[in-house]
């Protein structure tokens, strides 16, 4: 029985058992998991990976080296959306954009590799699963050239350091990170009555405000209105990314003539903005002035306005319910029992959204320790669990991109801000199963013959592997076929 507890801890709560891990977790499975509740356990070694600031610096260097000062009229605009109007880019701009794109793609590949390696080797894989849950909750996906370079830094800077802290801290770090501001268009959203908006014929973009309420906090259908979204979007205006382009947008010119107090102040602001390139900053000139009313409460204007609204969203019971449901779905079942949701909700409210307390409550859910695995693994989970059991990364295949693409889950590339779906039906369609079989069939040819397929079952699943699967695997006509059946077995496809 305790072996089973250890196996559940390592596979359902963790990312899959490494050799010996089931035994190590078995004496005190819940304690083994709770020992992983610390910020350092969710960190990823970032040797060689760029910070957001470095990504922007690298872009700037490319621009400088190619004779285009950033922010100059016609220069490539780091925060602009896809196919921004007006005007077509010149040949030089296209070259620069291509170079930036190439560098971003290389950066993304490094991020994918580092993240996969870490998940395959970490001995705190519950913390890893927990971090990935929140990264998916606050999805920033590599949708286009402007965002590709930022998805990795976003997860490492905004998400991972905060997943065992207060939810409010995590929400703030996510909402005001350049990655999120670009991904959900807030970096280009301008208070509609500001001078900047009139000058630019630009204005409000409600995307981030909507998704924070719908996806990150309250949840859809929880009672907020379109008017609340617009008010919140106005409160979020002014939050953007430092850099010369933002300075121009705000009408702040570093070389403004004159020696009046106002001009000097403007110059100082402009210089500061140069220094802050690639940082999330608040620019008053872009912020819609005045108080805002969201969900019946009035918030006075300026810099602290959006944060004050976020603080109240954190403490809303709707947020507790929305996130408790998602957590229960992730750790218990696609349709989790009310009892499980309620327990997480209670821990959330009692601890004022302290995610360490919430994590402990999830581990303590009796509902999550059912004998049979019911959660269907997503493709990334499947690959990582093979790599963990074998200690090899053959699971990822020779061409990682192609394997991820075939299984329809390219890391950092969720199809929408809602993130990857977390239910069986989304991943178990006919073609998906066929692709998994093709994958298993090709991986099994490369798996080390140092262990037999039955030993693989022992290591990876322990007592979770049922008689039927054990028999099928042991009766296979070749080691290859045995591995294929083990990888495709109902127990290994689930957690």
């Amino acid at each position, binding site marked *: 029985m305790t072996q089973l507890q250890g196996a559940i801890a390592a596979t359902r709560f963790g990312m899959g058992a490494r050799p010996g891990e089931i035994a190590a977790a078995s004496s005190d499975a819940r304690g083994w998991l709770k020992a992983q509740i610390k910020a350092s356990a969710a960190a990823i070694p970032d040797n060689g990976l760029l910070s957001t600031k470095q990504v922007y610096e690298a872009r700037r260097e490319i621009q400088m080296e190619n004779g285009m000062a950033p922010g100059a009229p016609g220069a490539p605009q780091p925060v602009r959306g896809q196919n*921004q109007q007006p005007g077509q880019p010149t040949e030089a701009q296209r070259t620069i954009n291509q170079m930036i794109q190439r560098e971003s793609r290389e950066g993304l590949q490094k991020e994918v590799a580092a993240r996969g390696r870490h998940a395959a080797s970490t001995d705190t894989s519950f913390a890893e699963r927990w971090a990935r849950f929140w990264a998916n909750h606050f999805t920033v996906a590599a949708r286009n050239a402007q965002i590709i370079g930022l998805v990795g830094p976003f997860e490492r800077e905004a998400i991972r350091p905060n997943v065992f802290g207060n939810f409010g801290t995590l929400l703030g770090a996510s909402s005001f990170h350049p990655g999120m501001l670009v991904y959900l268009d807030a970096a280009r959203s301008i208070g*509609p009555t500001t001078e900047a908006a009139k000058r630019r014929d630009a204005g409000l973009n409600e995307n981030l405000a909507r998704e924070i309420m719908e996806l990150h906090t309250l949840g859809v259908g929880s009672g907020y209105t379109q008017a609340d979204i617009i008010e919140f979007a106005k409160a979020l205006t002014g939050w953007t990314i430092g850099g010369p382009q933002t300075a121009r947008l705000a009408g702040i010119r570093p070389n403004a003539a004159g020696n009046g107090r106002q001009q000097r102040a403007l110059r100082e602001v402009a210089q500061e903005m140069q220094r802050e390139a690639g940082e999330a900053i608040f620019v008053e000139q872009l912020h819609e002035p005045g108080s805002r009313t969201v969900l019946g409460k009035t918030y006075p204007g300026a810099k602290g306005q959006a944060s004050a609204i976020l603080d109240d969203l954190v403490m809303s019971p709707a947020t507790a319910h929305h996130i408790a449901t998602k957590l229960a779905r992730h750790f218990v079942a696609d349709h989790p029992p009310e009892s499980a949701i309620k327990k997480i909700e209670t821990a959330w409210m009692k601890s004022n959204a302290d995610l360490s307390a919430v994590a402990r409550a999830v581990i303590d859910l009796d509902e999550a320790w059912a004998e049979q695995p019911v959660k269907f693994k997503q493709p990334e989970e499947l690959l990582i669990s093979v790599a963990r059991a074998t200690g090899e990364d053959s699971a990822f295949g020779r061409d990682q991109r192609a394997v991820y693409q075939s299984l329809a889950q390219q890391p950092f590339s969720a199809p929408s801000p809602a993130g990857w779906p977390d239910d069986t039906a989304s991943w*178990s369609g006919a073609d998906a199963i066929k692709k998994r079989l093709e994958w298993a069939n090709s991986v099994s040819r490369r798996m080390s013959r140092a262990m037999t397929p039955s030993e693989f079952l022992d290591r990876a699943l322990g007592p979770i592997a049922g008689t039927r699967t054990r028999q099928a695997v042991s009766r296979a006509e070749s080691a290859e076929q045995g591995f294929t059946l083990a990888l495709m077995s109902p127990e290994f496809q689930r957690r």
Partner: protein
Amino acid sequence: MTLALNSFALNRRHLLLAGFSATFISAGAANAATPESKGRKLVVIILRGAMDGMAALPKIDDPDIRAHRASLIDPKAIALSDGFALHSAMPKLAALYQAKQAAFVPAIAGPYRERSHFEAQDLLECGGVKSVSDDGWLNRALQKAPAAYSAVSIGPSQPLILRGASTHTSSWSPPVLPEASDDTLNRLMDLYESDPVLKASLTAAVGAEAVAGSMAGDKSMGGGRGGGPAQYTPQLQAAGKFLAQPDGPEIAVVSLEGWDTHTGQNGALQQRFTALDNGIDALRTQLGDTWKNTAVMAISEFGRTVRVNGGQGTDHGTGGLAILAGGAIKGGRMYGDWPTLKAAALYENRDLTPAVDARSVFKGLLRDQLGWAANDLDSKIFADSAVAKPMGGLV
């Protein structure tokens, strides 16, 4: 009712199936033809992300359109009829309209009135009014089909619209890695005997592969994940290939992603409209003779704001646009009414007010194209939908 696979072409894999699943292949199941369908086909294209219908088909004679969105109107749009013009990136669709093989339903929307993509897509696919169910309306339709119809979706994941109790569904995308041997497949079938979910999926996959046979190895066919505009043509071609098979499925579902244009809309849509235009044309070519019996419907979860936003884009709106095409469609005309763009006529002073319930179009096509019974449409397939009467005369 017989298994979809059974009506698909036979190949070596088909022989495997007979052995393991007697429940599917019921007595007298040599159905092969489905006479009720008379070779008619339905293609449902879900344009995910909310296409700006007013950019695709601006009502250029609406006196208020320029005040709302002058910068979003294509100056080269091709005039069609009734004051509507089609974006110039879709010349082939315009030609189909002139040939009376394409039509449009402006200001269309489901019963949903909020603006969440995800909830709206789920409701569009499950056919519900307020709450999302685990099964889609096309799956429920298959359970009540007038004959042993089957459906296929193109892409690695089965969309909600086809999920549910009916197993007459399959999904397909091209193989990337070498396939497993028949022996391995047989053993896996056996291993899945007590796992209904995996068993049903593997069964359907084998069936789809039997049809796709000649497509295997051709990676241009429906390749890659759902993906952007570059995938539109291969996905629609793959759908055409399935439908054109003798005894192939009656229904195909294709998801085309990338329509959420919050910023820089004109450039993004130029690319997507071009890809959609080419994709529908490729579907027509692939279908060959079958095109004349085919109805294609493309629809989004909702429309977009009437006014341009701060980033030369549009935000989530309400009334959208359905595109109808195919030899079976009574084309060359606009269906429904135009609610106008007067400030007072806008929904919540921002969106195009819906004039047609999307379920009316779904029901009209199911009834008139493929012969579903009206009372099943009103209750079992689209619960509580009597208010949305089937739209007649589409085919």
